[in-house]
């Protein structure tokens, strides 16, 4: 009798567990469909033989690679790819140097103006820099850097300083100061401590800063529109955006193919490193 009730109860628990699980699976699959459908649509469209938005049915009737071929033979797309790669790489290098140097100074030294400097950085990082585009445009025209990649790189590298300096400084603060002091006793200079101790230990945050600075030129379509003019100077984001703006009905499938070639490397990089990115962001913001 006693045994029987236990068994009954177990069955009940099993059944309710089963239903619960079934519901969860159903919800998970439904959400997956909502997320995947637009992505699938754009992927399939890029193989569609037509050119326009109207004609593209979800499943292409005569799948073709012709739009990918067009990208490389009839447009500036390969040039844009190289431009973006170049801007992203240089921006990443300059940004990491600027940010880590200043974060090291703010984290490890007491000097006059330190607090004011940190405070100013905190306030400045809240200003969306593209709102000052008129001033940036005139400044770059004075420097003769309009329609040049260097102009764009300087704006990117300058704009990221306040936020990333705080992010790095927070991480550097977490590296024990006793390490520096021990090295100092052994006769190490400030620069040696920075290069040999701080940088290796701060690898996670430096990776994050490098990565975000490498990726931002792939996303940004605002500054290139302001600074760059000629087609051979464009970046990918700007070029693709222009296609959709100007010719959304005539070259839709070409846009789809281009979008996929941009999205694939960035998405893979991101999914692969997402844990890293989210951890870095949250540690910078909460624990700092």
């Amino acid at each position, binding site marked *: 009798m006693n045994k029987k009730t236990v068994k009954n109860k177990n069955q009940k628990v099993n059944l309710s567990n089963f239903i619960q699980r079934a519901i969860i699976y159903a919800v998970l699959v439904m959400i997956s469909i909502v*997320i995947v459908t637009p992505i699938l649509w754009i992927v399939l469209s890029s193989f569609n033989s037509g050119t326009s938005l109207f004609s593209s049915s979800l499943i292409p009737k005569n799948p073709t690679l012709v739009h990918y071929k067009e990208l490389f033979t009839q447009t500036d797309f390969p040039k844009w790819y190289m431009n973006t790669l170049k801007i992203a790489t240089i921006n990443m290098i300059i940004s990491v140097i600027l940010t880590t140097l200043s974060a090291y100074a703010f984290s490890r030294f007491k000097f006059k103006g330190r*607090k004011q400097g940190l405070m100013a950085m905190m306030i400045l990082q809240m200003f969306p820099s593209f709102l000052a585009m008129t001033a940036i445009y005139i400044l770059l025209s004075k420097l003769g850097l309009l329609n040049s990649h260097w102009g764009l790189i300087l*704006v990117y590298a300058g704009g990221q300083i306040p936020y990333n300096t705080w992010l790095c400084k927070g991480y550097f603060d977490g590296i024990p100061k006793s390490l520096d002091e021990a090295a100092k006793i052994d006769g190490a200079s400030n620069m040696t401590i920075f290069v040999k101790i701080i940088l290796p230990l701060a690898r996670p945050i430096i990776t994050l800063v490098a990565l975000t600075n490498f990726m931002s030129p792939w996303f940004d379509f605002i500054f290139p529109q302001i600074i760059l003019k000629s087609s051979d100077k464009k970046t990918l984001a700007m070029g693709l955006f222009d296609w959709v703006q100007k010719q959304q009905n005539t070259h839709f499938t070409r846009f789809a193919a281009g979008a996929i070639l941009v999205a694939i490397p960035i998405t893979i990089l991101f999914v692969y490193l997402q844990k890293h990115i989210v951890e870095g962001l949250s540690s910078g913001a909460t624990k700092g």
Partner: protein
Amino acid sequence: MKRSKQSTIFSVLFMGLGQIFNKEIFKGIIFAIIELVTILNFGYFSKSINGLITLGDKPQYFVDGIAKGDHSIFLMIEGLIAIAILFLVILVYIINIMDAKRVSEALEKGENPLNTREFFKHIWDKYFPHIMITPAIMFTIFFILLPIIFTIAVAFTNYSSPNHLPPRNLVDWVGLQNFKDIINLKIWNNTFLHVGLWTVIFAVVTTACNYFVGLILALLTNAKGIKFKKVFRTIFILPYAIPAFISVLVMRLAFSGPGPVNNMLSSLGISKVAFFTNPFMAKIMVLVVCVWLGAPYFMALMSGVLTNIDNSLYEAAEIDGATKWQQFSKITLPLVLFQTMPLLIMSFAYNFNNFAAIYLLTNGNPVNSNYKYAGDTDILISWIYKMTKDQNQFHMASVVTIVLFIFVAGISAYSFSKTKSFKEEDMM
């Protein structure tokens, strides 16, 4: 008179004199050169600053294809740059006086003056942090601070089309007139209030939805006994991983008038839906797409928090007979809220300025004829962008920018003041 006083007075009179008096010839010459260069360029400074004050007296005209006359906006930027340089020179001047005083006091105590090589080593050691931050400071001054000051300054001018647009016209300082206009002129304050209200609604609803949808996704993917967790998590992170400008453009095309969603609806016998041309529908679309884009970030964040919650808490609760709901509301929710609160506020500030989503999805449309240069889905930042880029209403754009900046900076500063790193700095 004491030696230290003498050399200090020399340095006040002319940069570097005190140092030369202290027999630090090299240092003294460098200071003296800086002052000399500044004095020789007196004309440049006075002309630039005068230009900033007057903003020019003659609009540009052409003589034999060469532009003559004044361009008010160039004058403004040049004036600001001159002031920035002058500010740096004054800083050097103060350093020069302090240095003369300090060195001469050291000499009085019987220490030897440094030779050039020792001097450089001394500088490198003592001013190491200053040297480290100099490049970052220079970038910040010229690419962030200067543009911001320019933007603020424009709010006090009449820089706008059609009557005050250089090079054909001059721009003048107008004091607080623009601020008065945005309060008093009906068309401006109507637009400002409605766009501002929609901005707040948009930011609150998007952030709240992202947060809770993210939490639900995280709970589902962390539920006990679910297989393929990794597969689901990877799918759910996709919208965060794909470059936003691509996914938003795809959404815009998919839901556009002749797009596939409407095609599907009509093949099912349902009439077409005006996703982006009906004001209410367009607002709903904006919110839906923003949740599609933003929820995965919170899911990834909360998955981390959830896996870190000590399992013994739940075991203890189960022994005490707590229901699943009680476990969730008394253990999970408070812990998650506590850990993610600062990010919630940051996310609000981010959505408040979520330019890319609005600009790419609807471009602020449909146009509302009661608004000045704005559409129904425009938020403040996209309205500012339109006024600057398309309408040349720089003066009003700057006024709204200032208001927006104060609001967002206030929120972020508040949330930031709660973080540990801020408290450790003991900044206020």
